[in-house]
């Protein structure tokens, strides 16, 4: 277990193109001042001010938890792993290099911890065997209604969040994991591939399918009135 982690950390450090994660490429829109503040916090924790670590990781605790949950599908296991990952990050903080994006580093540690735990506990049995092959056939979208943007206020409604979460949970594991790492955690394609130990081509194939399947699931949800109280014009659908 420790070996796995250290090997991964070593790989990460040997990775020459960590520079790909610069602030400008940060999809989460981290501002320049927030980034400076983060770099400052990192430097201070690296110098031994461990009491600042929670402040450093706090902005990412939700994403750390979500990454663990996507892999383990159990709230208490996910919390355990989130805590373990945070402790591991703290213990290895000196190995973090300033050119990399801190959130990515944290998420990768989390994914690694979660995958190790799943291997250890063989929870895969619950979900069937790990089918590493990607589908040969193309996915055909089912719904072609007129489109409108769903306002993000929709997410203020718990039942909508719940429906979206259920749709995601209904995806096969290999699609769910790739989708969560790329679109929820916002790792890039390469980082997603590294974190899951699959090829870049596989990430792309699975991502495509995951996104299209979710779109169809949400389109079906539209038909069932999930979004019915949102301010859409009559007759127009967002998908």
């Amino acid at each position, binding site marked *: 277990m420790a070996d796995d982690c250290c090997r991964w950390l070593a790989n990460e450090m040997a990775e020459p193109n960590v520079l790909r994660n610069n602030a400008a490429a940060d999809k989460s829109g981290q501002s320049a001042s927030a980034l400076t503040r983060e770099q400052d916090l990192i430097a201070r924790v690296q110098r031994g001010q461990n009491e600042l670590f929670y402040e450093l990781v706090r902005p990412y*605790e939700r994403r750390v938890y979500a990454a663990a949950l996507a892999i383990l599908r159990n709230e*208490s296991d996910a919390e355990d792993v989130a805590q373990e990952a945070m402790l591991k990050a703290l213990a290895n903080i000196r190995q973090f290099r300033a050119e990399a994006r801190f959130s990515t580093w944290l998420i990768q540690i989390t994914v690694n911890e979660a995958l190790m735990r799943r291997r250890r506990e063989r929870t895969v049995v619950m979900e069937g065997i790990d089918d590493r092959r990607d589908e040969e056939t193309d996915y055909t979208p089912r719904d072609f209604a007129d489109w409108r943007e769903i306002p993000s206020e929709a997410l203020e409604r718990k039942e909508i969040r719940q429906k979206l979460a259920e749709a995601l949970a209904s995806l096969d594991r290999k699609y769910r994991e790739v989708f969560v790492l790329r679109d*929820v955690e916002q790792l890039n394609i390469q980082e997603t591939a590294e974190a899951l130990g699959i090829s870049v081509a596989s990430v792309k194939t699975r991502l495509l399918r995951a996104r299209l399947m979710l779109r169809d699931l*949400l389109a079906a949800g539209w038909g069932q009135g999930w979004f019915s109280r949102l301010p859409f014009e009559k007759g127009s659908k967002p998908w």
Partner: protein
Amino acid sequence: MVNERVNCEQVWRDISNYIEGDVDTALRTAMDEHFGTCPRCKSVLQGTRNVIRLYSDERMIELPAGFDRRLERLLAQRARPRASRWLTWEAWLVPVAAMALIAGGMWLMNSRTAVQQVKSEHANAGQNIPPDLAVVVAPGTKVFHVPGCSFIHDKDNLRKLTAKEALKEGFTPCPRCLKKYLETTAVVYALPGTQVSSDADEDEAARSDTSHRDEVRGRD
């Protein structure tokens, strides 16, 4: 390259790459043209963008109740400098040594009793579960769960209560979703503290790293 055309199937195959900005200029131009004339593909594109936008929103992530507090406490404990932890560790060794001297041959017996005691307390399932943890019970069952546990059968008629209330009413914890509170190992690791400390809260620093974590959660 001029006037390269794509059909709907090709668009669907590359739509994810298109959103990623991961298609070459010729294909991008061809796809842009296609979206301009094909409402079906336009619908697929915009729907897919909706998916990405909604799921990337942090509001989609629901943390378990108390997650922040437990994490903060765990990290605060870990932040204590190592040296002072060792001091505390040694500090409690003194009374142990004294006790061992005084008790002489009784020591071994005592410690065995302590182990048994902890184990039997553990057999009294549920004592490690945070008393105010929100749990649910389904009608006609004897088990209580963390909300959302996949082992709940009748999800429509759940009653909400605290773990303390559930235990009091005679429900037993679900071995799946409450597993982490039921593991014997965690309790056994916590033994040094349990044995010698009268004030569990203050003596945590003396415990092993593993027990730290369980402590943090256990007392929540």
